[in-house]
């Protein structure tokens, strides 16, 4: 008799249980993230960046090596790029057990010195599924990034809005004019329609890997719970990060989408389990282990995820950067943001957020392509280190500049000018010496 009184509540009870069951069934605690083995490096997704006269490493099982069409000496997995190599992309051909395999665009010979370079962190691009002005705006941001001339770019996730196929296609177009390597990791948005990150891997490669630039180590890591905004590290991932971050280097960076340690919790501020001894973390499993590793390695951690939030936070021996987004947000109405880092003699000397609408770089070439005037309008409120790339007629080599310093030129007429753009408007002219 009493059970009959519960009849009105049967549909609502079943409904709520079904919803919770669907959420449970579609939850993927640890997506199938790809970790590269030593023999997989370098490849088109994780290219080696190397300056002429410098070295890159490959697996010791490789018998012969060709960079482009030139065979190079392999000294137990260490390859030296000759001084006369032009800057740009090269295919890498490896002979293993007598069989040759070619990896396209796997070596980038950089014009920039490992002793003084910049790199850029972009994050939360949120490429939409329709084209038009929204995609064009993102393309303009990457064009500006390209004009600033970093040695490489890292994208710390959420490059698409929901990980849809057409969003990856647009993202491919957005990044298509970058001259330098781009290293990516997935964010939680990529898991929304692709919980195991299979589509991500097809378009952008592995999620866990490392690369060096000179003596600086960069480790890219995924710790996502599809489709949640929170992250976590399982035992395998912790071990992989520990092993990788403990490699020898003068400076160590971890690229990670979700903030591991932050001064504030943004709109997650009132979630009690996010608060740890005076700071906030959106990491659940493995939090203590990862913080211990980062502290031990004195690592710099580059994260995104919180869009409008810009912060640098020192916790014990580790430094945590939260970089605002390329996509606009309610609290970032003015325009896209990204962070520019400069490393000089293995010391981090510059870490500013660039407001894309406050920095303009315009190239004005003469009609015969023998001179260029570069007009820079810098309203950021601080100087901006630039490595400007111009392409002039090779017939008029050599060239000189009225400001900055030509750090590299090639016989093809490619010239790189190092210039610290002061606040306000400045002009650089690159002209033939004669």
């Amino acid at each position, binding site marked *: 008799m009493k059970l009959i009184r519960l009849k*009105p509540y049967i*549909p*609502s009870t079943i409904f*709520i249980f079904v919803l919770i069951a669907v959420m449970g069934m579609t939850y993927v605690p640890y997506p199938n993230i790809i970790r590269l083995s030593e023999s997989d490096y370098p490849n088109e997704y994780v290219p080696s960046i190397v300056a002429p006269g410098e070295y890159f490493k490959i697996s010791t099982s490789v018998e012969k090596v060709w960079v482009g069409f030139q065979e190079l000496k392999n000294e137990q997995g260490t390859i030296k790029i000759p001084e006369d190599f032009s800057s740009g992309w090269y295919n890498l051909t490896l002979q293993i057990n007598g069989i040759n395999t070619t990896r396209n665009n796997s070596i980038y010979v950089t014009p920039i010195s490992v002793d003084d370079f910049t790199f850029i962190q972009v994050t939360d691009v949120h490429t939409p599924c329709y084209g038009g002005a929204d995609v064009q705006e993102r393309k303009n941001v990457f064009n500006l990034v390209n004009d600033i001339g970093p040695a490489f770019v890292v994208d710390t996730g959420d490059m698409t809005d929901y990980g849809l196929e057409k969003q990856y296609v647009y993202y491919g177009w957005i990044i298509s004019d970058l001259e330098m390597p781009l290293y990516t990791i997935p964010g939680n948005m990529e898991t*929304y329609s692709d919980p195991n990150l299979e589509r991500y891997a097809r378009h952008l490669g592995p999620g866990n890997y490392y690369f060096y630039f000179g003596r600086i180590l960069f480790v890219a890591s995924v710790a996502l719970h599809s*489709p*949640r905004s929170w992250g976590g590290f399982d035992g395998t991932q912790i071990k992989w990060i520990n092993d990788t971050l403990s490699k020898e280097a003068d400076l160590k960076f971890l690229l990670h989408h979700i903030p591991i340690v932050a001064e504030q919790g943004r709109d997650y501020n009132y979630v009690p389990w996010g608060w740890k001894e005076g700071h906030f973390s959106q990491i659940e499993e493995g939090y203590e282990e990862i913080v211990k590793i980062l502290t031990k390695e004195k690592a710099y951690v580059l994260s995104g995820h919180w869009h409008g939030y810009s912060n640098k936070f020192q916790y014990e021996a580790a430094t945590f950067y939260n970089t605002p987004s390329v996509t606009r947000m309610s609290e970032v109405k003015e325009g896209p943001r990204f962070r520019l880092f400069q490393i000089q003699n293995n010391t981090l000397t510059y870490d500013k957020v660039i407001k894309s609408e406050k920095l303009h770089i315009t190239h004005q070439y003469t009609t015969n392509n023998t001179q260029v005037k570069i007009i820079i309008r810098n309203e950021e409120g601080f100087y901006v280190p630039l490595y400007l790339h111009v392409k002039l007629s090779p017939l008029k080599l050599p060239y000189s500049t009225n400001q900055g310093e030509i750090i590299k030129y090639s016989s093809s007429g490619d010239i790189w000018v190092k210039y610290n753009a002061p606040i306000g408007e400045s002009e650089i002219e690159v002209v033939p010496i004669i």
Partner: protein
Amino acid sequence: MSYKKRFETLFHRPSESFQEIIKYPCFFKTSLVIFICGLVYTTIAELGLFNSLMPHFIAAYSLMFTIIWFLPTVISMIIFKIIGKKFNTESYIEANALSIFSVITLGFIFLSIFMIYSNIFADPKRTAYFAMVYYNQWYPLAIVGVIGAILILHRIIIIGRIIVKAKLYQIIIIWIVAALISMYIAYLIFRGWL
């Protein structure tokens, strides 16, 4: 009064519906209608908001819309019972469910208009979520939200007066307590878990 009339609390005096619910409570049937409609709304909203159908988000958003009325309704009901009010539990829950359902339907109609505009006619075309969150186009929906909130408050008071026979100050205090507890629980689920 026909059964389907009780779904029209938005268009006539809601007290008529609530009197009918006191006489003939039928939360079993009403909840079925609400949940089926809720799933349809959520599925359509997913398409318009994200241009993609993702089962976990259909489930999560359906759960959210259930929680935001079900939790405060149950909490307020328990408090009313604790302070000694005698009323029919089924009628109380059904009346609250119908109140919020009518307002959610109104909101869904406005969201649908916005989704059609945003995905098809706007220049540039944007998914509705993208337009609202990244380009601040949520003001018209916020106005509908405020109107909806006023309508819900009005109905909460009527339900308290007609079904529970509580005093106005009791209704206000108990619903503030119930709403705050529920909002925090919903926040913990949707910010702390999702």
